[in-house]
């Protein structure tokens, strides 16, 4: 791996919104132009800070959805939480041309880049797909052939973030397999899983432990803990399981 310069203390920077895209009824992608962006790696996140007119500030962490190859443009995907302090503004009010204050990139732990190899297992719950999508987009952008499986749990078909892009990536790439589970509602003729992730499902989808896969799990805390415990039960080394949790009001 190339030597990296020290990141230095993080400071706030301002980006301009250059595009927005509705991903699902609740999830919105926001693309920012960041003139002073130092570059990021797939899996990293940023902190976004909103300042009210009275000076009140709120900060939340959001994963980067775009691959490093698209910088200095950076795309975040934000899920709207109805009681959130930050996400409703980002999904409902923010417009192209607006400025947004953020700091990052943050994190070197929950990171995958093609040079790290595989096989790769990605397990996503809901908007936990976002940092894993950055990994898949990075993998595609550099033409990596690392054998990769994604197990993605959503409530319903309409809640699957990046659904069309995942289908295209899956069809175009023999070394990538995308498996969905829909936990609440399934469309007629649905042939993938239709329950919450459990040990039996991971036994079927995950790589055998003797292949020593790299594993990344992102989702709500209970989802992550269930998936990680199941993988350990199946004989995987805890040190190869990287997790990123977000809480009900964490808005990660």
């Amino acid at each position, binding site marked *: 791996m190339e030597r990296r310069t020290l990141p230095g203390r993080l400071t706030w920077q301002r980006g301009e919104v250059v595009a927005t895209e509705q991903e699902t009824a609740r999830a919105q992608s926001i693309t920012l132009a960041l003139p002073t962006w130092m570059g990021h790696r797939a899996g990293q996140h940023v902190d976004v800070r909103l300042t009210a007119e009275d000076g009140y500030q709120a900060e939340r962490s959001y994963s980067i959805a775009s691959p490093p190859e698209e910088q200095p443009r950076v795309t975040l995907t934000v899920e709207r939480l109805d009681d959130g302090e930050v996400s409703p503004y980002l999904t409902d009010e923010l417009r192209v041309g607006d400025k947004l204050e953020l700091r990052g990139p943050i994190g070197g*732990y929950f990171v995958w880049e093609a040079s790290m190899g595989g096989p790769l297992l990605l397990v996503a719950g809901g908007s936990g797909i976002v940092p894993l999508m950055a990994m898949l987009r990075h993998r595609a952008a550099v033409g990596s052939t690392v054998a990769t499986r994604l197990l993605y749990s959503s409530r319903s078909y309409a809640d699957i973030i990046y659904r069309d892009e995942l289908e295209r990536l899956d069809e175009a790439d023999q070394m990538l397999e995308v498996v969905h589970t829909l936990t609440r509602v399934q469309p007629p003729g649905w042939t993938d899983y239709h329950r919450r992730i459990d040990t039996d499902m991971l036994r079927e989808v995950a790589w055998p432990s003797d292949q020593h896969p790299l594993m990344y799990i992102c989702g709500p805390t209970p989802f992550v803990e269930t998936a990680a415990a199941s993988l350990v039960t199946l004989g995987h080394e805890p040190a190869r399981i990287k997790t990123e949790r977000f809480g009900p009001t964490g808005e990660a």
Partner: protein
Amino acid sequence: MMENKLDGNAAAGTLQAIFPFEMTLVQATCAGCGTTNALGATAAYMHGMGTIVRCPVCDTELIRVAHVKGRYFLDMRGVRVLQISAEA
């Protein structure tokens, strides 16, 4: 204020505003149980008052950090040793 369990990745932005290093890979040795874990693998609890990073093995409070009126308050009594890679 509701307690919100996340992981050390969520505390990294605040810590990296203080320390000029990539903080999720920093290794912390717990003063309670002696195990060493990457901060990214710890449990973090975000409160209105600040953030508490706990040992994933024994739940000892490793780091408490609050940012109040332009001042960081950092309580690290739960950390015996902090190993920081200078070549992140």
